[in-house]
């Protein structure tokens, strides 16, 4: 094992590997530790969506900038990440939701996003298989530049490009301790050896809490288990991701033809248990066939569990705090780590290499919970 590194990253998901690439590209000596295999956490269980329609300005900005990076990523990394702009169609069910949608759209448009409010007829123009009456929709918002990419391919492409730039990735290597001296990170200890470093990035997803504890920092994240399912492959029927904040459902058809989707259930609670439930299968099937009755003839193949690393305001925790110098937070994505990763990786790399601070990083600092300066992200699904 290497004995020294400029930066050590804990976690081999899309953010860990994305950071490794961004930092290695800028000549930093980078080491990544992943205790299982690459994409073994939330990245590997993710719904693959990329959305720019948010209720908070910070998330919208991060997402708009992330899409711009996603658009160039296949070329930049030299591997196809299967990016598609199918759009996100967000169902609106009542007047209250319509008011929130109008507010969101106004803010999103002010940031340059193309997003429209659709009437029921227009919903079917975008996704013909939807039963607008069955889904109780009075309208929808639609952003055509939202879409999907393949989270596995994106992570592997980042990892491969990072290695070409000199980064070293150790999988099946667990971080067991982080040493500090005078409130400054000095060393990362794993079950296979230790690496001296002054900077460590905590990108360990739902296990970030445990990593932060190693330097005595308490983070307010909780792991929430989520279930998601996939159907057999079908001919292309629709390109958009369909979501509803009220019903909690999201579903889309992937490039290979399978429909992927999830929905919350009462059994969904805090904890690390991964046992899938029968009630998810039933509830998902009921709501999905209410939204798109034609899908009742389609087979569900599998369903699995993943975790949202949820913060009190459903927004990520990024950057350094004064408590421990060199300990960088990159977690708490609350279910949106994949879609926000390109810009998050860039902002954190700019901070680490150039000491460049940004408005978004400031507002997503862990300190916001101390000062109670929090604005809750409303647009959460699944």
């Amino acid at each position, binding site marked *: 094992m290497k004995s020294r590194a400029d930066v050590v990253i804990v976690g081999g998901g899309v953010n860990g590997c994305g950071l490794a690439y961004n930092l290695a590209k800028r000549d930093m000596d980078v080491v990544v530790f992943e205790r*299982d*295999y*690459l*994409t*073994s956490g939330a990245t*590997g269980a993710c719904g693959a969506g990329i959305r720019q329609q948010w209720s908070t300005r910070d998330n919208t900005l991060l997402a708009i900038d992330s899409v711009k990076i996603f658009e160039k990523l296949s070329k930049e990394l030299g591997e196809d990440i299967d990016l598609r702009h199918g759009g996100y169609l967000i169902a609106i069910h009542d007047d209250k939701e319509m008011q929130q949608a109008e507010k969101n759209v106004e803010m999103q448009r002010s940031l340059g996003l193309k997003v429209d409010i659709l009437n029921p007829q227009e919903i079917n123009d975008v996704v013909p298989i939807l039963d607008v009456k069955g889904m109780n929709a009075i309208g929808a918002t639609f952003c055509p530049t939202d879409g999907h990419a393949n989270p*596995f*391919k994106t992570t*592997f492409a980042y990892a*491969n490009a990072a290695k070409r730039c000199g980064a070293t990735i150790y*999988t*099946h290597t667990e971080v067991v301790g982080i040493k500090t001296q005078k409130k400054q990170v000095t060393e990362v200890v794993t079950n296979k050896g230790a690496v001296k470093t002054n900077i460590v990035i905590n990108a360990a997803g739902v296990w970030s809490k445990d990593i932060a504890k190693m330097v005595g920092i308490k983070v307010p994240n909780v792991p929430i288990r989520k279930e998601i399912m*996939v*159907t*057999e*492959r079908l001919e292309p029927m629709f390109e958009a991701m369909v979501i509803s904040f009220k019903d909690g459902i999201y579903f889309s058809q992937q490039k*290979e033809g399978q429909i992927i989707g999830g929905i919350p259930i009462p059994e969904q609670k805090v904890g690390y248990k991964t046992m*899938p439930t*029968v009630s998810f*299968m*039933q509830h*998902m*099937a*009921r709501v*999905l*066939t209410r939204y798109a009755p034609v*899908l*009742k*003839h*389609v*087979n*569900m*193949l*599998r*369903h*699995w569990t993943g975790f949202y690393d949820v913060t009190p305001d459903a927004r990520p925790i990024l950057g350094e705090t004064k408590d421990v110098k060199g300990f960088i937070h990159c977690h708490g994505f609350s279910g949106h780590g994949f879609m926000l990763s390109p810009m998050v990786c860039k902002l954190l790399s700019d901070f680490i290499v150039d000491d460049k601070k940004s408005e978004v990083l400031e507002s997503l600092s862990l300190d916001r919970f101390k000062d109670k300066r929090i604005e809750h992200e409303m647009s959460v699904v699944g």
Partner: protein
Amino acid sequence: MKNKAIVCRCEDITLEDVEKAIDEGYTDLEELRKKLRIGMGPCQGRVCIQIIMKILEKKTGKKVSRRDLPTSRPPIVPVSLGTLASDEK
């Protein structure tokens, strides 16, 4: 036809695809699965995983632990959404 031996029938993955991915550094069964979609089709790997395990062991010289085999997921066999949504017992 020499290299057209299909190892994953659900996803049309050939022996050549698997060997190429291993050469590119995907030497973890789960990473191979996520790279190639092996075991993600209707059979969930019942047909291919054992074969791929053998190819991986042969190429890397390392034994793949049975514990590392991908998890089988419910509903195990394909079931229609209509059936799952139905209240009938």
